[in-house]
């Protein structure tokens, strides 16, 4: 797969949130306003890019040579947990307001299944180092985009009359579903056409 193909695939076609169901908790939890959505999206993009790259290195320099691939899940999640801890420390130091806004969701990037998910997907697809990094980065970008769109919708929804029992999370899911319908326009046929014409 070409690099452009990977970027388009993981940002649009296999968008983490809207077509793979990864990272739904922050998608619902942090999409209340666009500022925290961007902050969260950037933090996740950063963690995902690094996590995919480091997982690739661990897979091919440690797990495969030692023939202990069954420890993959344990190894990857530990790396991700450490990375998240580092990002949390950095954000707390350099941007206290963002730290306040992200609140509990920052340590929860560890349990954002998107991060572990994209690392595992990269390994399953036998991506090389650059491709893994790119897959992580574009998946993060796709997540940021979905989160930003969602926060825009929710800011509008605040002023609308939503049925009582659907307020908050339920209406967010329903709007997300409609957004996923729109994203179905991005499919593999689009990608092949795009690559052929360029």
């Amino acid at each position, binding site marked *: 797969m070409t690099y452009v193909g990977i970027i388009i695939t993981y940002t649009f076609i296999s968008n983490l949130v809207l077509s793979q169901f990864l990272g739904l908790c922050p998608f619902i939890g942090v999409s209340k306003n666009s500022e925290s959505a961007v902050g969260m999206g950037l933090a996740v993009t950063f963690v995902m890019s690094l996590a995919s790259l480091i997982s690739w290195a661990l897979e091919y320099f440690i797990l495969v040579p030692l023939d202990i691939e069954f420890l993959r*899940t344990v190894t990857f*999640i*530990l790396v991700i947990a450490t990375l998240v801890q580092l990002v949390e420390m950095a954000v707390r130091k350099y941007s206290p307001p963002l730290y306040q806004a992200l609140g509990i969701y920052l340590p*929860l990037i560890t*349990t954002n299944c998107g991060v572990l998910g994209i690392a595992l997907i990269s390994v399953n697809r036998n991506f090389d180092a650059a491709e893994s990094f790119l897959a992580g980065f574009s998946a993060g970008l796709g997540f940021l985009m979905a989160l930003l769109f969602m926060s825009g919708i929710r800011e509008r929804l605040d002023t609308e009359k939503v049925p009582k029992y659907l307020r908050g*999370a339920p209406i967010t899911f*329903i709007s997300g*579903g409609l957004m*996923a*319908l729109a994203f179905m326009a991005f499919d593999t046929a689009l990608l092949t056409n795009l690559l052929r014409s360029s």
Partner: protein
Amino acid sequence: MKGLFKGLLNENPIFVLALGLCPALAVSITVSNAIGMSAATLVVLMGSNLLISLFRKQIPYDIHIPAYIVIIATLVTAVDIILQAYSPALSKSLGIFIPLIVVNCIILGRAEAFASKNTLSASFLDALSMGFGFTVGLVTIAFIRELLGSGTITLIPNGNFIRIPPLADNPVLVFSLPAGALIVMGFLQGFFRWLGVVRKR
């Protein structure tokens, strides 16, 4: 007994606590997938709640999250290997969502909120209750999606399924797509809220 049933309605992990959403939506295309996923999650949840409750006094507070994650990841690896050996078809159709049980927030959530503070038997009961609640939620979503989306009900992953004629001829395809999953989830959450209000009256 009250503790056992809290997970079914009042504290249903999927619809009320909103934990473990990703696997709930991703594997709920067929009922058999949902049952397989619930069973795997239940086993991991019981194991992790038991182990964490057992060692809650030994695990130092500063590193409790990494310690929990290692315990959970080990259990998940075991479940993954067992599934690959005994039910390759199910293991294949659940795909990366088996290793992703590690980051299912329901497991770490219960470890942190319950097992780390309670006795062995209470934690076991909590795992059982939450696991059942998760199963009920997952199977409900899968039932609706499979019924409307493909007009079938698959109970065991061997290719046999119950066919519902009028729906199977004209399935509402959107329900088997990601979009349908999100919409079903939204309405079910709303329904459970309404149910909660009715019960309180």
